[in-house]
């Protein structure tokens, strides 16, 4: 059993322990928290052979430096930028086997703003709270004593006996293309207070661009653009706020509610970002312009046939989450297919073995 230990030399602006979020406390008013970019989080863990909900580290705006005191299998996903092991530049979205004393280091993010560091093994960070290791800073819950990770902090991780050196690559052309664009298309499902808005307001929402403001954070992404008019009051009887819900207060300027959002709130919501497009929001930086698209399509997952197809694929990957097999994900491809006269948008991961 290898005990690896990492030490934070530079935490960057905001470094926290996260996982796929906390759902057990939602009815108690405890926010979901967790990875802002859940996709990058899942892939980081997959690249090192961890199960998808293993804790990992979320970094913001790069500029982090971490030393590993023992051998470790790691991967960094998320925003693009220059990443190094000691003085050798390496790739993001790829796993590497580190030697004792190795330092991983990243400069500024070039495209996007959040990164995820997964380390193979069991993270020795105490017990989960309300079922999750996600950090909710305001409430002091989760992570490392409910706080951000600071310089000098050490984290122990208990690894495999013989970590299989998996050189796996995830080549997400669609995701990388999205990171590089400053104008981004975002699919939205309308509601639940869609009838509180004027027809013109809804038209603006789906035709104009909305610019990301610097006052954005893990609670919400604030936008500025053409005012979205109301026909009913912007204040409502408080209801639940989903991940990616788009609130529009009386100012007419939208806010996309993200990981650390309050569980309930009293402002009208025009729509919810589809979960596949949430990473777009998680990686948006001030100055980016979002273009919302009304998505009538029922999410592929909710249809019988699609369900079975994707479930089988998911089962194949869960083999990756166990230790032995070197499961190389070479590429992620997207297809639009038509089955029994219905259209689906599907994602396929091409495995090395299959070629």
């Amino acid at each position, binding site marked *: 059993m290898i005990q690896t230990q990492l030490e934070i030399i530079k935490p960057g602006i905001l470094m926290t322990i996260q996982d796929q979020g906390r*759902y*057990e*406390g*939602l*009815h*108690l*008013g*405890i926010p*979901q928290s967790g990875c802002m970019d859940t996709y990058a989080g899942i892939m980081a863990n997959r690249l090192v052979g961890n199960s998808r909900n293993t804790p990992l580290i979320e970094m913001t705006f790069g500029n982090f430096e971490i030393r590993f005191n023992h051998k470790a299998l790691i991967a960094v996903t998320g925003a693009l930028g220059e990443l190094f092991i000691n003085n050798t530049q390496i790739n993001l979205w790829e796993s590497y086997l580190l030697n004792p004393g190795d330092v991983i280091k990243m400069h500024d993010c070039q495209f996007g703003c959040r990164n995820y560091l997964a380390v193979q093994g069991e993270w020795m960070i105490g017990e989960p*709270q*309300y079922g999750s290791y996600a950090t*909710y800073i*305001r*409430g*002091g*819950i989760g992570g490392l004593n409910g706080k951000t990770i600071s310089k000098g902090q050490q984290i122990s991780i208990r690894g495999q006996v013989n970590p299989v050196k998996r050189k796996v690559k995830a080549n997400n052309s669609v995701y990388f293309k999205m990171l590089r664009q400053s104008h981004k298309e975002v699919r939205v*499902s309308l*509601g*639940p207070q869609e009838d509180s808005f004027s027809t013109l307001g809804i038209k603006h929402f789906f035709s104009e661009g909305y610019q990301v403001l610097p006052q954005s954070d893990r609670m919400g992404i604030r936008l500025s653009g053409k005012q979205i008019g109301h026909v009913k009051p912007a204040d409502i*009887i*408080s*209801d*639940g*706020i*989903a*991940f*990616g*819900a788009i609130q529009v207060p009386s100012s007419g300027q939208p806010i996309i509610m993200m990981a650390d959002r*309050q*569980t*309930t*709130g009293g402002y009208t919501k025009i*729509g*919810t*970002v*589809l*979960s596949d497009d949430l990473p777009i929001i998680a990686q948006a930086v001030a100055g980016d312009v979002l273009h919302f698209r009304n998505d009538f399509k029922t*999410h592929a*997952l*909710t249809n*019988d046939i699609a*369900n079975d197809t*994707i*479930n089988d694929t*998911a089962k194949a990957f869960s083999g990756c989450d166990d230790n032995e097999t070197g499961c190389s994900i070479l590429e992620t491809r997207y297809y639009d297919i038509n089955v029994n006269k219905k259209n689906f948008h599907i994602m396929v991961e091409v495995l090395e073995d299959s070629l």
Partner: protein
Amino acid sequence: MEYKIKNIGDQAISIYFENKIDISINQSVHYIMDHLKAMSLVGIKGYVPAYQSLMIYYDPYILKEIILKDILTNLADNLGPLTTDNKLGYRIPVLYEGSELAYVADYHGMPINEVIERHTKPNYYIYFLGFAPGFPYLGGLDPKIATPRLEQPKIKIEEGSVGIADHQTGIYTISCPGGWQVIGKTPLKLFRENSCALEAGKYIQFYAIDQKTYDMLKDNDDGAIRLEVLK
């Protein structure tokens, strides 16, 4: 009871009852949530009950949308007997003090003691917990002491603060920014690392204590609050 079921993006479904703040409507929300929890449906990730709605986070890979909607419809069409007015709840000690307490009294042209009397008289119904961990949304504030929020919100309202904002009253379970008129504080720690003292659907009654009792309760606080039948 009339209701609507709506998709919230592709990761949640909500059921909305009539658009008003009403105890029996809220009890229907909790009835549905409690029954869903009892079913232990695989694929449901979490619940957000609010005044007249329940949002259910689910995993569409595991639980099909149409099945969840079917179950919800069934429950909503067959609402069982709701809780009677047997007022089961918590007694919360409060040290009433501070400049905002004086402000509230002054605002309504009544002595401070009357504010305290009016605040401690009702049994407040807990509609749900939200806004912050363990923060109770309470109903039943005496309209004679309803007071507008602070013009300028404070950067920090201390945990344990008891306040009034328009027709709402409540307790800050964590320190955070806010605009409520803080009329006192409770020594009890209502939200902890792994437990929440308050439960929605129950009631709260405030009672006045002095500084000495406050200090003693604060030192001896083990987080346990008894549920009792309130008079």
